[in-house]
């Protein structure tokens, strides 16, 4: 037994929900399967200050709640569940969620990206024991304790600023001697009294696996190889993201870094399968660009289903 839909959307961040909004308004009765990280990365942020339309900023979870309600308002069906496998070899495409099968004439992939770990092995083993990729989730446990943040981008700065209100001391560890973060975030972090920076250092080990908790980090200087140790109770990893594309390995064309390849808007290497948001974007990775590409995927899917999407058409997508 399987349930057939015209359009299925996988993922419930800004890309997926915008695709759901547009396809439901086009009367395609989309089914959106939200995934375990429902709401996407914005669910783990606090104030979002760069989403247009909110001059005082908007809380990430609130923004996602609104997007979801808006899509549902126009009839999008949103279901809890995590896609376990897909078969894109023929149409209709098959999408399996646990033991239930769905089929779809068009598929929009908006599975996003998830926080990267350090690849030390020990960091995953101490996850929930002092190693975290989410300051707003786990910062609470480090009230009055020293912590470290690894990374030099916006994510790392946001984590450091959030943690500075809880922890005694926040040490940012960065492999280079300059930050990648935006100017606004850099200025905020650099001017916070209890945030300090260790430049040109990388984490080579986290202690102490035997005690089952974080006690210190072993650091290596990237310029001279010298090792040092930093005593902390927690370490927050903000070194970037990996695309959630494991489901599509061998079925869709990907870049070397695992991101889905798209062409002529949102099209993937399989006709009828479209991709939107961070799963196909390792450059911009913004809520607003994800939402924009979700809209593109919805319009492309609508045209594909009505037979008006032509291969390699380079014409403008604006019609209304």
């Amino acid at each position: 037994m399987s349930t057939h839909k015209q359009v299925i959307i996988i993922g419930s961040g800004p890309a997926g929900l915008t695709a759901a909004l547009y396809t439901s308004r086009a009367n395609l009765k989309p089914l959106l399967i939200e995934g375990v990280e429902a709401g996407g990365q914005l669910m783990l942020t606090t104030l979002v200050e760069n989403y247009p339309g909110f001059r005082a900023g908007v809380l990430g979870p609130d923004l996602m709640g609104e997007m979801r309600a808006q899509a549902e308002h126009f009839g999008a069906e949103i279901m809890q569940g995590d896609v376990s496998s897909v078969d894109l070899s023929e149409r209709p495409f098959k999408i399996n969620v646990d033991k239930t099968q769905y089929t779809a004439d068009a598929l929009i992939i908006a599975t996003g990206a998830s926080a990267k770990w350090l690849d030390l092995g020990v960091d995953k083993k101490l996850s929930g024991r002092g190693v975290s990729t989410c300051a707003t989730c786990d910062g609470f446990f480090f009230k009055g304790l020293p912590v470290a943040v690894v990374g030099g981008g916006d994510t790392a700065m946001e984590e450091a600023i959030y943690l500075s209100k809880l922890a005694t001391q926040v040490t940012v560890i960065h492999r280079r001697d300059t930050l990648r973060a935006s100017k606004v975030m850099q200025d905020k972090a650099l001017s916070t009294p209890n945030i300090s920076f260790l430049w040109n250092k990388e984490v080579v080990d986290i202690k102490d696996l035997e005690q089952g908790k974080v006690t210190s980090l072993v650091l290596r200087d990237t310029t001279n190889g010298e090792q040092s140790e930093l005593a902390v109770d927690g370490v927050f990893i903000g070194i970037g993201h990996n695309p959630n594309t494991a489901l599509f390995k061998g079925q869709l064309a990907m870049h070397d870094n695992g991101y889905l390849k798209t062409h002529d808007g949102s099209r993937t290497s399989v006709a009828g399968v479209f991709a939107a948001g961070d799963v196909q974007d390792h450059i911009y990775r913004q809520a607003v660009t994800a939402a924009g590409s979700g809209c593109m995927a919805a319009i492309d899917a609508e045209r594909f289903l009505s037979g008006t999407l032509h291969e390699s058409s380079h014409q403008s997508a604006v019609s209304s």
Partner: protein
Amino acid sequence: MASDKVKVFTDANFGDEVKNGVVLVDFWATWCAPCRRIAPIVDQLAEEYNGKLTVAKVDIDENPMTPSKFMVRGIPTLLLFKNGELQETVVGLESKDRLAQIIDKHL
């Protein structure tokens, strides 16, 4: 709506409550966004395993002793006990299918 099959444990009764049978405990807090994502899955597990598995929640703001005793330093964390002994620790989000597999090992 939260399932009425899900119990609420506290620092005061935690030790007694996990003593018998297989017990799944969800450590959460009101401010934790990912906890809100796993809550409906925990509710469904409580309904589906009713009679075979006790499912409970601990609010870590109101009950700081229990998470510290089991070294919970991130939420959501699910702990699975069998007759008072800690068997499994699941940190972060997992699909319902994966959680069911973990539970089934101990039933």
